[in-house]
């Protein structure tokens, strides 16, 4: 085995939210087009650390493995990214793997991102249809609007934009770029626009759009290349216009 290439991986472990965190190092056999998920699977099959100590398999979230379900976001060499598309050959070794730091930890690399789904509720991120019975076609939408809306609707709720945002932390319940961008998407739709003012109002609440401080990390970190800063700017404009108008007209 001397001539086979090894991959050194360091994983931050934590048995539960109450337990202390610790690091474990693993040495794995390199294979072509290996990604971080394959590393974690190799460890699960043979959970022995580099110095020969037996340990438990690593708990982590994953599902589609093609960067569209949003499950496997974690910190890889200090950066928030999807583990499935993190190719070992493109990473500096030892590869450091940690859980996202801005969400409550469950175990090892598993975190609870329920906050994002609750935020979607808060901003009414849906189209208010009357019912699923047959009511004919939807409103016509120009290809131009579709081409703007489609990229926004690609958001996979992975949480990368929250993870990298300096304004998201234990003192600050900022909803984050993804949610603001969803507000833009639903306000853009002819039927969705019927809830526009409620959505904008929700974004003026605690943790609302005002918490954005324009560091613009979100747009760099987004694995789906969503124009998040553009969304924030546009929604910001809509919010203050509505606020000003509301203040002027009582």
């Amino acid at each position, binding site marked *: 085995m001397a001539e086979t290439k090894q991959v050194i991986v360091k994983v931050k472990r934590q*048995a*539960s939210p109450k337990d202390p965190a610790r690091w474990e190092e693993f040495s794995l056999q390199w294979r072509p*087009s*290996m*990604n971080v*998920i*394959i590393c974690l*699977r190799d460890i*699960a*099959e*043979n*959970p022995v650390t580099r110095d020969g100590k037996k340990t*438990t*398999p690593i*708990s982590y979230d*994953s*599902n*589609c*493995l*093609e*960067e*569209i*379900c*949003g*499950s496997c976001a974690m910190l890889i060499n200090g950066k928030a990214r999807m583990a499935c*598309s993190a*190719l070992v050959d493109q990473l500096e070794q030892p590869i450091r793997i940690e859980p996202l730091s801005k969400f409550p930890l*469950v*175990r*090892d690399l*598993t975190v609870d991102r329920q906050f994002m*789904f609750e935020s*979607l*509720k808060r901003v*009414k991120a*849906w*189209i*208010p*249809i009357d019912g*699923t019975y*047959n*009511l*004919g*076609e*939807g409103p*016509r*939408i*120009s*290809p131009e609007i*579709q*081409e703007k*809306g*489609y990229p926004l*609707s*690609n958001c*996979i*709720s992975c949480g990368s934009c929250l993870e990298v945002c300096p304004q998201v932390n234990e003192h600050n319940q900022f909803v984050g770029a993804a949610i603001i961008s969803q507000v833009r998407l*639903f306000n853009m*739709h002819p039927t*969705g626009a019927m809830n526009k003012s409620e959505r904008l109002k929700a974004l003026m609440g605690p943790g609302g759009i005002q918490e954005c401080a324009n560091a613009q990390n979100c747009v760099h970190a987004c694995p789906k290349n969503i124009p998040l800063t553009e969304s924030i700017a546009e929604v910001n404009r809509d919010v203050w216009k509505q606020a000003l108008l509301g203040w002027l007209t009582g």
Partner: protein
Amino acid sequence: MRQPKIIVVGGGLAGLMATIRVAEAGVPVELFSIVPVKRSHSVCAQGGINAAKNQKGEGDTTDKHFDDTIYGGDFLANQPLVKRMCEAAPGIIDLLDRMGVMFNRTPEGLLDYRRFGGTLYHRTAFAGATTGQQLLYALDEQVRRHEAEDKVKKFESSTFLSAVIDEGRVCRGICAMDLRSMEVKTYAADAVIFATGGIGAIFGRSTNSVVCTGSAQSALFQQGVDYANGEFIQVHPTAIPGEDKLRLMSESARGEGGRVWVPRNPAEKRPPRSIPEAERFYFLEEWYPKYGNLVPRDIATRAIHRIVYQEKLGVDGQAAVYLDVTHIPRETLDRKLEGILEIYEKFLGVDPRVEPMKVFPAMHYTMGGIWVNGEDQATNVPGIYAAGECEYQYHGANRLGANSLVSCIFGGGIAGPAAAQYAKNLEKGAESIPSVVFDAEKKRQEEKNQKLISQDGSENPITIWREFGYIMTEHVTVTRINKNLEMAEAKIRTLQERYKKINLSDRTKWSNQTLNFARELENMLILARVITLGALARNESRGAHYKPDFPDRDDANWLKTTRAKWVNNEIQLAYEPVDISLIRPRARRYDAAK
């Protein structure tokens, strides 16, 4: 009046649609899912959703959609419900459109349609190359709205273990395990709708997501819910090989003009783009001039296998053929296929707009699934309903591209109100069932966990699973030979023996993914035998089921549905006739007009 309650297990398209419909019927619904429902496998569907709206003036009709579906499925599907589905499809598209799905549009602001495999019409509505994701999100958003109104309660980190079935053989709820606390609990309900999706993990690597293990279907099977047509497994012709997953390269790549070819010279050394046209073998176009690159999936898959294994023409001598979109204008590619081309670029580091993609077939979909009646998605156990990929009803022996999304939404849309109606009509609801029924089921499941956690053994579940996947992929996918199937079945039995000696490397009781996987693996092994035995018995070739020793379809003996039953802890195969009351079976050929 008694307030009924419904449980939905599975939060993909079918489960979400069922949930919405139950909520609309005014019945409280609890939705169980292993992952937050927005992360369900439906997001992986790429190409589109079929509906004969005839928006390109080609004279398309729902009858033609129906005929294409039945014909594509090689006449194994019961016809009346398929007809209803095709008739409902345009309405489903309208509904999704109203829900705000960002479908691609024509300059007039109408929905755009593309061509897909197995049809000659532009019948497939699409949202870029991530249609499944867009559809799932639309339903997810509606469910979230109902959740905000307290009509739906979600359990999004919970795995289904078993149904709670009373002495009268009626389902009264479920037993589920919280994947964080590992706590086993029972939940009473008057009816349960299963929408637990695909079974890809049974084949080791597939185009499916990690959660698509078929474990729930298998658990139900072992509780007396019949499983139909398990042997019909769709292998998608074009996937990107990978060690963790075979990533799908959507049929839409061919729908938009992508061409499949190999160099005519097996020793070809030149880069693909410098190989002149005359020296390229566009084998699908040559063999199937009418449908060309858009023949149904089973046909394309076998053609690629033939090219690679018999003609020895695989690219660079490997198991791969070219899927070429480099001749399509960049602007079109970016507008219509960006999502899928990005996947290729991201995972292989090669730009498919410049360099033809290398692809190979991969296990993709199960046409077979939980047996349901031809009426309202009810299974043979009262109170249990099934919808989506986990049931068997709509695709016969082979599914046409872009028909799965429509069958999920249609099936879920039927199951919801049917379950609600059943629950309302029940004289005695789940609340009147003595708690001992629930406690007994809970105890049975807890004991299973305890045994797994405490036993000392020598086998690793992941090692068993890897070996298992290789066996299934090699012998129970594209080409089936009886002696190999027998061998595969025997090997699965030995794996079942080895499973009894597994040793969990994690014995903790908090977020223990090893324990959950071990439980799934046991169920997967049983379902794999259902598939293998079904394939072994069916001595004919039909749709995705291909036996070189029996190369023809045999309607006289095999125009029938396989219905597997669990009797005395063993698998028994029974058969029932197919409802062919609407279209008379005819030979299925794609090299000429049908």
